[in-house]
C-alpha cells in the first residue's frame, strides 16, 4: 500500500521495528481468492531462505505451477471440493482451478499484509508512491477458498486446518458469514484450533455498517477489525451551472469532459423504470441521456456498473449520489467514464438545482491525489458496528485500521472495476472495505510476532488494542463519518491501531486456551460443543462458577437491565508485565454518572518481566437509562511512560 505506512508511523520500519530480520521468519497465511504471483509485491529480492519451520507447499493447477512461488510467496494452495460439490466442476475457462487470483481481492489483501516494496506504484497516477505491505519482510502463503460462486465453509475449514499444519504464524481472513454461534461458525471453529497452536487470527468485521449489531467474526479468540479512513483523498468537484461547487471523489483517468458546462439530467427522469434513478442495466433511455452528465443514486448494483450503464447509453459522465445508508462517506472508484461520487447532502442539493433550472448544466473537475486530509482517521460508514450479537459481554469490534481507498496489488486477470467490459489491466488497484483493514492488522501482528516471538496471539491482540488511539493529535475524539459525531467503542473498539506504540505496550491482557474453555463453560456450552472446538475431552467443572466477565479481555462491555435486575457487575482482569519493572496507577473516565466504577487495587507494581497482577473492576449502576441506551468510559493503567487503555461500553436493555 502507499501512504498507509507513513499514516501509521511506519515510515521507516527499520527505525521502529529494529528486529526486522526476525519478521522474515514470520509467515502470514491469507485465506482469500488466491494470488497473482507476477505482482511485484511478491518479489523476493533480499529475502533469505524459507524458514526451516515451514511445511507448506506450492500447488500446481490452471495457469499456476510450483515455480510461481519464491522466498516471499512461500506457499500457495487452493481448496475447491466444497465449492464443486455444491456448484459442480469448476469451468477452467472461467476461473483458474489453482491458487491463481482471478478476482484481485486476494492479491490486494496479501500484498497489504506483507507486500515487498515496489517503487512507482499508483493506479492511473492516483495514490502514487512506494507501495509496501505492513510487514515487508514477512513471508506470504495463500490459501484460495473463495471462488466466483462464493466461499464455502468446508473449503475454509480445510484451508485453516492445512495452514496450521503448514506452520503459519498469522491467519488473515477478510471474509465472513452469518452471525451463527461460535460452535457453528467454521471460521470461529477453525480459528479456535489455530489459536491453540499459537496462530494469531485477524478477520474483517464486515461491511454492514453503520447499523448497530452488524458485526461478523465475533469470537473472542479472533481479532475483529473495523475500517477507518486515511489522510488521503481523490477530490473531483461537481461544478453546477448556478455556480455552486460540491465535493466528490473519483479515480477516473481518461478522456476529459468538454471544457464548457454540459447538460445535466437525473437518471430517474431519463428512464421508464420505477428504479430508474439507480442507473441499472437497460434502464436509461439513450435519447434522454446522450451527450449529458447523468446523476445516478447509489444502491443495488455496483457503483462502477452504473458508470458503465451511463456510458453505454451515450452519457458523457456520471455523478453518483450517496443515499442515507452511506451518508457523507465517499469511496473513490476507477469509473469507465468521467464520474464522481458525492455525499447525500450534495446529492440532494444537486437534485434541487435539477428541479429548479430548466436547462441544468454541470461539469466535473478532477483534482488527482491530495494528502494531509483532516480529520483522519474517521470510522468508515460501511464498517460494521457492535454490540456483539452473540456475547454482549465481549466488546467488539476490537480495533479499526485503514480500510478506505486502499491501494495494493491486483490481479492481471481483470480490470480495476472488475467489470467484464473493463479491458484495462493494472498492477495496483484502490478498493475499500474491512477486507482491507484486516490485512493491515495481520501484517502489524506479524511485525509484533517478529519483535516478540514469545508473545501469544492474545498478547499481540492486547498490545494492538491497549495502545490504540481514540483521539486526534488535537485532542478531539475520532469521528464517525456516518454521524459526523465522535465514534464510540461500538464503532472503533479500542480505537485506531498504532503499531509504533504497540511494540512496547508495558502490560498485556494474556489469555490461554483454558481461559477460553472457561469462557465457553460460562456460555453453558455442552460437552459436545466444547469438544467440537477443543478436540479433546475438555469438561466444565461442575463445582466451579464460570463467568463471561472473567475472560481476560482487553476491553469491557457491561450490560444492565433498564428495569430492575442486577445493578452491580464485577469484572476481574490480570495484567502481565512485558516491559521494565514499574508501578502502574489506574485512572477512570466515564460519560455517565449513572454507573459508579471502582477498581481494586488502584496500584499495580511489577518487579519483573512476565509477572502477573490482577485487579477487579466493580460497576455499580446507581441509576438506569431507557432500553437500548449506551454510554462509554475508559480504564487506563499508566506508569508514566506506558498507557494501557481499555474502553468500557455500558448498555441498558
Amino acid at each position, binding site marked *: 500500500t502507499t501512504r498507509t505506512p507513513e499514516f501509521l508511523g511506519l515510515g521507516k520500519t527499520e527505525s521502529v521495528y529494529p528486529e526486522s530480520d526476525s519478521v522474515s521468519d514470520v509467515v502470514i497465511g491469507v485465506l482469500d481468492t488466491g494470488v497473482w504471483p507476477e505482482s511485484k509485491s511478491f518479489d523476493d529480492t533480499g529475502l533469505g531462505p524459507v524458514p526451516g519451520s515451514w511445511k507448506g507447499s506450492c500447488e500446481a493447477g490452471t495457469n499456476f505451477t510450483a515455480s510461481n512461488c519464491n522466498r516471499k510467496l512461500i506457499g500457495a494452495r487452493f481448496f475447491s471440493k466444497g465449492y464443486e460439490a455444491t456448484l459442480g466442476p469448476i469451468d477452467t475457462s472461467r476461473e483458474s482451478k489453482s491458487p491463481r487470483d482471478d478476482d484481485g481481492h486476494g492479491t490486494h489483501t496479501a500484498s497489504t499484509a506483507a507486500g515487498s516494496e515496489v517503487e512507482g506504484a499508483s493506479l492511473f497516477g492516483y495514490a502514487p508512491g512506494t507501495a509496501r505491505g505492513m510487514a515487508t519482510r514477512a513471508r506470504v502463503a495463500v490459501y484460495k477458498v473463495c471462488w466466483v460462486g462464493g*466461499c*464455502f465453509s*468446508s473449503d475454509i475449514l480445510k484451508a485453516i*486446518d492445512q495452514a496450521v499444519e503448514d506452520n503459519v504464524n498469522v491467519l488473515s481472513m477478510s471474509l465472513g458469514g452469518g452471525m451463527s454461534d461460535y460452535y457453528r461458525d*467454521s471460521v470461529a471453529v477453525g480459528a479456535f*484450533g489455530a489459536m491453540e497452536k499459537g496462530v494469531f487470527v485477524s478477520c474483517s468485521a464486515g461491511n454492514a455498517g453503520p447499523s448497530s449489531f452488524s458485526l461478523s467474526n465475533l469470537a473472542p479468540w479472533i481479532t475483529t477489525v473495523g475500517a477507518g479512513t486515511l489522510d488521503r483523498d481523490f477530490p473531483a468537484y461537481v461544478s453546477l451551472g448556478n455556480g455552486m461547487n460540491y465535493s466528490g471523489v473519483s479515480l477516473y483517468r481518461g478522456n476529459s469532459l468538454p471544457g464548457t458546462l454540459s447538460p445535466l439530467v437525473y437518471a430517474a427522469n431519463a428512464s421508464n423504470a420505477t428504479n430508474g434513478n439507480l442507473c441499472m442495466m437497460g434502464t436509461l433511455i439513450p435519447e434522454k441521456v446522450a451527450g449529458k452528465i447523468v446523476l445516478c443514486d447509489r444502491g443495488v448494483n455496483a457503483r462502477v456498473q452504473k458508470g458503465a450503464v451511463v456510458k453505454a447509453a451515450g452519457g458523457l459522465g456520471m455523478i453518483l449520489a450517496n443515499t442515507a445508508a452511506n451518508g457523507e462517506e465517499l469511496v473513490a472508484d476507477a469509473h469507465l467514464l468521467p464520474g464522481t461520487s458525492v455525499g447525500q447532502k450534495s446529492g440532494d442539493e444537486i437534485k434541487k438545482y435539477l428541479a429548479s433550472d430548466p436547462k441544468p448544466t454541470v461539469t466535473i473537475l478532477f483534482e488527482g491525489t491530495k494528502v494531509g486530509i483532516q480529520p483522519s482517521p474517521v470510522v468508515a460508514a460501511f464498517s460494521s458496528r457492535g454490540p456483539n450479537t452473540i456475547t454482549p459481554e465481549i466488546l467488539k469490534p476490537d480495533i479499526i485500521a485503514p480500510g478506505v481507498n486502499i491501494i495494493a496489488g491486483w490481479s492481471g486477470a481483470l480490470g480495476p472495476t472488475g467489470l467484464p467490459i473493463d479491458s484495462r489491466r493494472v498492477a495496483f488497484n484502490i478498493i475499500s472495505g474491512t*477486507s482491507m483493514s484486516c490485512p493491515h492488522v495481520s501484517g502489524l501482528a506479524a511485525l509484533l510476532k517478529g519483535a516478540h516471538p514469545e508473545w501469544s496471539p492474545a498478547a499481540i491482540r492486547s498490545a494492538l488494542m491497549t495502545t490504540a488511539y481514540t483521539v486526534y493529535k488535537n485532542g478531539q475524539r475520532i469521528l464517525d463519518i456516518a454521524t459526523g459525531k465522535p465514534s464510540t467503542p461500538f464503532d472503533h473498539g479500542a480505537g485506531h491501531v498504532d503499531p509504533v506504540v504497540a511494540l512496547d505496550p508495558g502490560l498485556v491482557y494474556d489469555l490461554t486456551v483454558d481461559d477460553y474453555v472457561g469462557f465457553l463453560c460460562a456460555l453453558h456450552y455442552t460437552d*459436545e460443543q466444547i469438544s467440537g472446538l477443543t*478436540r479433546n*475431552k475438555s469438561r466444565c467443572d461442575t463445582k466451579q462458577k464460570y463467568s463471561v466477565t472473567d475472560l481476560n479481555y482487553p476491553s469491557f462491555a457491561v450490560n444492565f437491565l433498564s428495569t430492575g435486575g442486577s445493578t452491580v457487575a464485577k469484572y476481574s482482569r490480570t495484567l502481565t508485565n512485558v516491559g521494565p519493572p514499574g508501578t502502574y496507577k489506574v485512572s477512570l473516565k466515564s460519560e455517565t454518572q449513572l454507573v459508579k466504577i471502582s477498581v481494586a487495587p488502584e496500584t499495580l507494581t511489577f518487579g519483573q518481566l512476565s509477572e502477573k497482577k490482577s485487579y477487579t473492576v466493580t460497576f455499580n449502576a446507581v441509576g438506569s437509562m431507557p432500553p437500548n441506551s449506551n454510554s462509554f468510559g475508559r480504564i487506563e493503567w499508566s506508569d508514566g511512560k506506558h498507557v494501557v487503555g481499555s474502553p468500557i461500553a455500558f448498555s441498558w436493555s
Partner: protein
Amino acid sequence: VEENQKTTYIIRMAKYQMPAAFEHHSHWYDSSLKSVSDSAEMLYTYNNVVHGFSTKLTPQEADSLKTRPGVLSVWPELRYELH
C-alpha cells in the same frame, strides 16, 4: 434427484472415542460414513483445528449419522463472502 437432495455437511468427531478396532481415525470416519450411505464420498478430513470430515448427504443420512457413536455434530455447509 437424490443427488440433488444432497447437501454438504461438516461432521465433527470425538477422535478420542475412536474404537480400538480401528487403526487410523480416517478408517473410523469412513466406516461411520458408510454406515449411513453407500455412495457418499469424503470431501475432506480435518486433522488439526477440528477432527472430522465433510461429505455430501441427504437430510435423512445426515440425521442418522448424528446418532452414530463419536459424532459430535453434523452441520450443513455455510457460504461466506468477502468483505
